[in-house]
């Protein structure tokens, strides 16, 4: 291995690591706030990438129907609750948000031909289609059992993951898609050619991480989320709604997932089930951070990316084995170092 190969592998590792880092942050966030181990995180990556690919192919992405169906389901539940509580004045707003907004989005997609739109608009449309699935999932699957044990929530996550994978196969088919590169620019640094696309991934990931940091440090909602993560009961006593915190964290997780999907879709072929493995590698990163520390999770995820790149050079047949074996010494070290206390 000469220096050039080492640098190319490093570049590759950091690019993948940046995506894993984003997912690791989302996993830590969701777990800290809601105690949910969010296995379907990867599905948002796949849905984001494949929705963008469908839009560019001029097809109506299947996620539109999912959005409509879930919106209608939530609308029905909320309406029933409102009627039971005799708060009829809330009905129009509920229907408008849950059914009206998705319908409007679907109608506008049908009205214009999405393939002819500029890339930025396509990306925005993709985010508008995929991100709301996050809070909707929380409302439908997790909110009714929000007080259940971590294990029960994990089981719900597995069910949601399997369901979403099946829906993905139905919507997007078994074959993968790849979107054209955002930029064809290349930069030569010495002997090594840096591709614009990979730089874009790294820069966008870094910007998103900074934005998340500012959100948690500077905004009221961010502080509310941090408070809930630290002490759920205490936060509720201070007037922070647990449901709102859950919805907000799932929105962020959905946004991070969909955005990661948009970022990687030009570098690799994405399949309806690719999300799981990508999410799992983010999870390894999050575990390195003990599912609690954001910087440690991000660093762990980049480490996973680098390990993956170099092991694919030295022993490609054992790449996944090497990456996932990393979790064993980390868990050993973690269990020796910390005393685990679960919040009741």
């Amino acid at each position, binding site marked *: 291995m000469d220096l050039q190969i080492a640098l190319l*592998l490093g570049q590759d590792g950091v*690019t993948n690591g940046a995506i894993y880092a984003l997912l690791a942050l989302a996993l830590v966030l969701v777990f800290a706030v809601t105690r949910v181990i969010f296995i379907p995180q990867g599905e948002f990556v796949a849905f984001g990438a494949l929705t963008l690919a469908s839009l560019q192919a001029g097809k109506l992405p299947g996620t539109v129907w999912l959005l409509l169906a879930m919106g209608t389901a939530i609308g029905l539940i909320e309406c029933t609750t409102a009627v039971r509580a005799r708060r009829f004045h809330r009905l129009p707003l509920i229907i408008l948000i849950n059914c009206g907004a998705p319908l409007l989005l679907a109608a506008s997609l049908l009205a214009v031909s999405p393939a002819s739109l500029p890339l930025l608009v396509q990306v925005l449309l993709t985010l508008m289609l995929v991100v709301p699935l996050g809070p909707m999932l929380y409302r439908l699957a997790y909110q009714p059992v929000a007080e259940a044990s971590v294990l029960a929530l994990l089981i719900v996550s597995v069910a949601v993951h399997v369901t979403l994978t099946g829906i993905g196969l139905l919507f997007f*088919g*078994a*074959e*993968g898609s*790849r979107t054209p590169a955002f930029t064809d620019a290349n930069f030569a640094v010495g002997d090594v050619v840096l591709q614009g696309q990979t730089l874009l991934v790294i820069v966008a990931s870094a910007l998103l991480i900074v934005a998340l940091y500012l959100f948690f440090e500077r905004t009221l909602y961010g502080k509310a989320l941090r408070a809930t993560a630290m002490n759920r009961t205490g936060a509720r006593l201070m007037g922070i709604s647990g449901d709102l915190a859950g919805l907000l964290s799932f929105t962020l997780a959905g946004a991070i997932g969909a955005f990661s999907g948009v970022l990687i879709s030009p570098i*690799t072929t994405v399949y309806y089930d690719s999300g799981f493995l990508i999410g799992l590698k983010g999870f390894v990163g999050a575990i390195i951070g003990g599912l609690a520390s954001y910087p440690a999770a991000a660093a762990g995820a980049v480490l996973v990316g680098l390990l993956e790149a170099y092991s694919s050079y030295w022993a*490609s*047949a054992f790449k996944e084995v090497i990456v996932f074996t990393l979790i064993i010494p980390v868990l050993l070290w973690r269990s020796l170092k910390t005393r685990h206390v679960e919040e009741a």
Partner: protein
Amino acid sequence: MRIKLLLASLLALLGIVPAAGVRAEINVGVTLSATGPAASLGIPEKNTFSLLPTTIAGQKINYIILDDASDTTTAVKNTRKLISENKVDVVIGSTTTPNSLAMIDVVAEGETPMISMAASARIIDPMDGKRAWVFKTPQNDAQMATAIVQHMLDNQVRTVAYIGFADAYGEGWWNEFSRIAEARKIQIVGNERFNRADTSVTGQVLKILAAKPDAVLVGGAGTPAALPQKSLKEKGYKGLMYQTHGVANADFLRVCGKDCEGTFLPAGPVLVAAQLPNSNPIKKVALEYVTKYEAMNGKGTVSTFGAHAWDASLLLAHAVPEALKKAQPGTPEFRKALRQALEKTTNLTAAHGVFNMSPQDHLGFDQRARVMVRIDNGTWKLVE
């Protein structure tokens, strides 16, 4: 009174009709991988079953189609269910080699003939008491690997690198290809693996480039096989590229785009049916399948995988009349007779080749079952 009489005669009629039927219906059990990692192969197979004839030699055929989700345990469970609950006369499936291998014990125990749609030669070789019940329709990997090696020799390839799936498909191809290539004095300078869900193969590709091979063979199936090829082109590889017949569907062309121009692969003749010379008997059968499939699923949707299911039905249509002479469907004697009839298949022209089976060879394809194809302007071109 009149109504009662009417009812009575109706009931009598209902009673008579089944009794008047000469024979029971033939039940065909199918297990295939319509979901899971092998879905891109299993879905066209599943679509093909809706094109198949509903009667053979005047007998009604029932297809009972189950999905095994590309999972070995489910394939075995499906097979047991088909044999014990549905009392099928023949099992068709499964899509993948691991699933088909696991099903052999079950069909041998249930004394039910099985026609696999998976590629590996191990499904029917070495022939033994259990495999006597097992037949298959896709070409053996060895047959395809020989075609690639021959083409490499004709194009002065001296060194070759291999990159394949880290699963049974990639491993199977590596075994066949490395054995044949070394026997024919082609030096193998690289052997790498990747996973179908991988987002990057930079490491493997850099290692292959460092070895400077004359040609690279990608041992993958479906669109995931495009990733190594795209990475190689991106990093400036200029040598010959080979793929396996596992990529022969339209989605691969769509995903790989211009990076796959000039790639060679061996395939069943059905892939380039329209380009076959008129003298080739396979042309007519293959075109019939292509026309029927595309009429139902849209133009350009046909893949070679569905044609394996079509060929399995052709084998049945050929063997069932023979078996009917000996026994009634639904009986062990019929299944035994069907097995014998399948084994005696001679000169049956199908979409993928011409079957000439024997007790030792439960595939029976010859050189006519494969052609070399080049990707040219985003389409498959037959290489003379």
